[in-house]
């Protein structure tokens, strides 16, 4: 009986040790990439690259999961009517390759036809999480740390529809 108790206690202590050791080397981190744009001609292209982020650099070889990918936007529309706004993502265009000027057929829509009324708007990270679709591809691309982002708007002209500030927010678990 005494030996069994000792064995049980040792297993428990080992489990505690593993837990403490695990906490020291793994965790869930939030990585942010900032940009802004004016959707001239209803098209915008941006190359999201979080690989130079400090947390990414620190854990890039140990990333287990991309828990969530979201965005935050501050939008100003000076149009008289609503503007429809969509976002697509695709594989990262390598440096030196021509900049895409249309949304490729291989792209995946992640924000589909969001209607933006005239005025100033703030879409929070939490709000974006509820409208983002295509999350499987988004997470797969985010796991590489780089992907192409395409913003498409209709119902606007010239510089009347601006995304004053945008963030792509990735939550990753690394071990």
């Amino acid at each position, binding site marked *: 009986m005494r030996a069994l108790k000792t064995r049980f206690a040792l297993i428990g202590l080992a489990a505690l040790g593993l837990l403490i050791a695990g906490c020291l080397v793994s965790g*869930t*981190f*939030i990585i942010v990439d900032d940009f802004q744009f004016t959707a001239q001609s209803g098209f915008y292209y941006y190359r999201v690259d979080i690989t130079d982020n400090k947390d990414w650099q620190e854990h890039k070889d140990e990333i287990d999961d991309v828990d969530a990918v*979201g965005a935050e936007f501050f939008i100003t529309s000076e149009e008289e009517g609503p503007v429809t706004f969509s976002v697509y993502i695709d594989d990262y265009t390598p440096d030196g390759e021509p900049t895409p000027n249309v949304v490729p057929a291989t792209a995946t829509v992640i924000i589909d036809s969001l209607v933006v009324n005239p005025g100033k708007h703030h879409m929070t990270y939490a709000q974006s999480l*509820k409208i983002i679709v295509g999350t499987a591809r988004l*997470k797969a691309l985010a796991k590489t740390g780089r992907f192409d982002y395409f913003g498409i708007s209709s119902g606007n002209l010239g510089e009347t529809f601006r995304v004053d500030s945008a963030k792509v927010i990735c939550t990753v678990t690394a*071990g």
Partner: protein
Amino acid sequence: MRVTVVLLTLLLIGAALSAQTPKIGIGGFAGLSIPLAQDDQASGKEFGFRARVKLSFLTVEPNFTIAKWGQADPPSGSGISEMPDGSKVTSFGVDALLGGAPGVPGFKPFFVIGGASYKIKNDENPQIDESALGFSAGLGFLFGLSPKFDLDVRGKGVVIPTDGGGSKKAVSVTAGVAVNL
């Protein structure tokens, strides 16, 4: 996974009922769940219920727990205006206690180790919805108020594996009362 936990629980209770002088109890508890190394979660409340079966040298506790983590502050320098609310973690599992001696008056420290089926879900983030078998270990004490009642205080580390090979970790600190039947 939950079926496995239920079968294991029934097996343990059956073993206890056939053992010598079993002591059975029930109880409730509440406290704090503190996520570890999770930038997207903050501490939150936890509560639950447990049954207690005293075997020859250890005590087995089937349990059900609900923890609701809080809304984290945006990471400094990120510029994020507001984070989503924290996730909800429900679990259904079995703990084993070495020490404790339910129904005996006085201070009784114990060591606890357990396994459970965990579900992590976030109402504000549909991308977070995972189920997994996890484990926990910790320390605590019972304080026997009378042969019928024990005060139960414990702290546990919890590890919940996630799909890609990572894990979510938390510390659970709870206090509760157990009634020995």
